[in-house]
C-alpha cells in the first residue's frame, strides 16, 4: 500500500519535472506526455522513450537543396506517422522548389493527411503555424521559415504545449543559417545531411543514407547517427555500422538543466 503510494508520488513528481522542462503537452492533461518512438538508439535520450510530442522541434539541412529535400522527407515521415498535418511554406521561395506530393507519399505522408498553406513572409507562416497549433484536429504543424527568433520559438512552444499538437520548424536553405547554438526554446534541433549510399554489388542507388545530427536538445543530449531514409510507412532504420565505420555513440546527456 505504502509502496503503491510512493510510486504514485514518484509519477506525480516525474510529471511535474516534465512540465517544468516544457517537454510536451502535459499541462493540465491527464494522459501525460506522449512520444513517438523513432529509433531505439535515439529513444533512450528522452525520458518518454521517444520524440516528445506537443512541443517544438527544429530541423535544417546543410544549406544545399538536396539536404533540404532530406529535411523535408524526415519531417514528412514523422508527421505522416502522427496523423493530420498542416504544412505551411512560402509562396515564392528562393529555392524555387515546392513540395511534391508523390515524393511525400513515398515516405508515408498521404495526400489526405495534409493541408497545405502558402504565405508570403516568415511572419505570416509563423502566424499560420500558431493558428494551426491551437486546433487539436491536427497532429502536427510544419512551417518552413528562413529565420526564427527566440520570441517566435517560445510562442510556438507555448501553443504546442497547450494543445498537444507537435510543431516542426524547417529552416529553409539560406547563407545566413549557421549552426550556432542558440538560446533554445525548441525541444530538439536536428541537422540532416545526405551521405553516400552504401556500396552495392550492382551499380545502382540503394536507399538513401543521411547523417542525422541532434545538435541541441532540451534534455542536453546530442549525438550523430547514420540512418537510412524512411520507408513507405515513415519508419527509419539505422544504417549498418560496418558499411561505413561511422556510428558514433551518442554523447552522454550533460547533467544540467537547459536554459530558455
Amino acid at each position, binding site marked *: 500500500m505504502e509502496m503503491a503510494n510512493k510510486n504514485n508520488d514518484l509519477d506525480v513528481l516525474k510529471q511535474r519535472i516534465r512540465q517544468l522542462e516544457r517537454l510536451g503537452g502535459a499541462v493540465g492533461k491527464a494522459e501525460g506526455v506522449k512520444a513517438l518512438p523513432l529509433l531505439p538508439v535515439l529513444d533512450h535520450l528522452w525520458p518518454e522513450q521517444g520524440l516528445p510530442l506537443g512541443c517544438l522541434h527544429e530541423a535544417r539541412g546543410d544549406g544545399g537543396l538536396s539536404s533540404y*529535400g532530406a529535411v523535408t522527407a524526415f519531417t514528412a515521415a514523422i508527421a505522416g506517422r502522427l496523423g493530420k498535418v498542416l504544412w505551411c511554406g512560402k509562396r515564392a521561395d528562393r529555392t524555387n*522548389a515546392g513540395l511534391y506530393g508523390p515524393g511525400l507519399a513515398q515516405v508515408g505522408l498521404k495526400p489526405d493527411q495534409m493541408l497545405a498553406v*502558402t504565405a508570403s513572409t516568415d511572419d505570416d507562416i509563423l502566424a499560420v503555424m500558431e493558428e494551426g497549433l491551437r486546433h487539436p484536429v491536427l497532429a502536427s504543424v510544419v512551417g518552413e521559415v528562413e529565420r526564427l527568433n527566440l520570441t517566435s520559438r517560445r510562442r510556438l512552444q507555448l501553443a504546442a504545449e497547450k494543445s498537444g499538437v507537435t510543431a516542426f520548424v524547417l529552416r529553409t536553405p539560406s547563407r545566413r543559417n549557421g549552426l550556432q547554438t542558440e538560446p533554445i526554446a525548441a525541444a530538439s534541433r536536428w541537422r540532416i545531411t545526405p551521405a553516400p549510399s552504401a556500396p552495392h554489388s550492382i551499380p545502382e542507388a540503394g536507399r*538513401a543514407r543521411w547523417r542525422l545530427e541532434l545538435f541541441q536538445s532540451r534534455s542536453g543530449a546530442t549525438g550523430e547517427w547514420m540512418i537510412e531514409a524512411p520507408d513507405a510507412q515513415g519508419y527509419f532504420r539505422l544504417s549498418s555500422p560496418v558499411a561505413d565505420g561511422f556510428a558514433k555513440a551518442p554523447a552522454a546527456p550533460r547533467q544540467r538543466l537547459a536554459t530558455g
Partner: protein
Amino acid sequence: MDLRKRRLRQDSAWQPDKPFVIAALEGQQNTVVAVNAAAAACGIAPGMALSRARVIYPDVKAEAASLAEDAKALQRLAVRALRYSPLVATCPTDGLWIDATGAAHLFGGEDAMVKGITRRLRAIGISARTAMAATPGAAWAWARYGHGDPVLVPGAQTSALDDLPLRALRLAADTVQTLRHVGVKTIGELRRIPRATIPVRFGEMVLRRLDQAMGFMPEAITPLTPPAARRRSMSFAEPIAAPEDLQRTIDILTRGLCEDLDKTQEGAQKLDLVFVRIDGQMPAIRIAMARPSRDVSHIAKLLTEKLPTIDPGFGIETVTLNAWRVGPLQPVQLGSDGRDGAAHKDMGELVDRLANRVGARNVFKIAPVARDIPERAAVATDPMKTATIQDWPAHWPRPTRLLSPPEPVSVIALLPDYPPAKFRWRDESHSVRIADGPERIFGEWWNAAREVGEVRDYFRVENDRGERYWLFRKSITGSDDQWFLHGVFA
C-alpha cells in the same frame, strides 16, 4: 427588356457595334427573336426569318435563344428589383412588374423612380423600357408600345391606351390577326365595338384583357416571395467607436443570426458585416467559410480577426450582419462530453480560419491526378474535397521537392544515351557516383499536339557527397537533347 443582350456582353467575342441576333426555332424555321442596335439599323427586326437576316447582312452573328437561362436571369433581376417594392413579379418572358403603390415617394416620386429604374438597368447592360400606370395591363402595354411620358396618370390612361395597337393587350397572335381582318387595329377601335358581341366573336380573353388594362376588372400579379433575410442589425442611440464595443456588437449580432439560422436549419457560408458610420461611410468586413456554419464562436472569431481593418471614424451608428449565402445544415449530435462532437473534429473550421488569414487560394490540399508528366501529377485542390484517386503509383521513386520550372543543367555523358557522368547546376559542378534510370515518360500527345514527339528520360543520380538529384533528358524529334534538373530526393 432584353436580357439576352446582357448574357452576350459577357461573351469575350462580343462586339457591340456588329449586327447580332438571337434566333429560336419556330416551327420549321429559325426566327430572329431579338436584335441589337446595329442589327436593327441594318433593317433586321424580330420575327424575321434568320435566313432573311443573313441576306440583309451576311456576316450577322447569331446565337440560339435559351429560354431556361432567360427565365433564370429574369428571376435574378426580379430579386434585385425588390429594392423598389416588396411586391415584384416576373412577367414572362421578358418583363417585370413592380407594384409601386406607396413606394414611389421613397424614390423621389413616380417620374424619378421610373427614370431611376431605367438608368440602373442601363448601368448593368440592359436596355429597358419602363412605364408606370394604374393597372398591370396598362403598364405592360405602355412599356412596350407607349410613347412620350412613361408615367400614365389615371385620368389620361384611357385615352392614351386607345391609340395603342391591339398587341398591347397581351392577346394571342391569331386573335389579333382575326381582329385585324374585321378592321380593328387599335384598342380604341376595339372599345367602339358593342361589348356584348365581343366574347362570342373573338373569345373570352379579349374582353378580359381590355377590362384588366382599363381597370374594370382586377388583375392579381403573383409576387416573388422575397428570400428570407438572414440578417441582424443593431442601431445605437450614441455612436460607438471603441473596439470593445464593436467586439460586443459582433458577439450579439452573431448570436442572434445563429439563432435564426438554427430555426431554419441553415448555416451561413458568406457573411457581410457592414458598419454605418455617422459620416455616411460604410466600411465592411466580408468573410467566407468552407462549409455552412452556425457556430457562434467560430463566426464571431472570424469577424473579430478582421475588425482591425475597420476605421470607426467619428463613430458608428448602425451595424448590420448579413448572411448572403446560406446552405442547409442539419443539427449535429452532441459529443458525450457535451461538446459539438462532429464540428470539433472538423477540418472545416481550421480551413476557414486559415483562409481568413492568408486568403482562400492559399489553403489547399495536394491531390493526386492521373497524369504522366510529373509536374502535372499533383495539383492543389479544394481542401474540403475528396480526391478522385487516392494515391500516386508508388513503384517509381519520386523527389520530395520539385523545381518548377525544371532548371537547365549542362551535362557530360560518356555516350549520348548514357546517364550523365558530370553535371553543372547553379554554378556548381557535381560528379555523378551512381545513376539509376532511365525512366521514360512520354509527352501527353493525347492532350496537346506539341507534345507528340516529346520524350523525357529521368535519371536518379547521386553525387560523390551523397546528394540525390532527379535529372531528365528531354528529347524532341528534330531538335537537340536538353538536360534539366527537376527535383531533389529524400
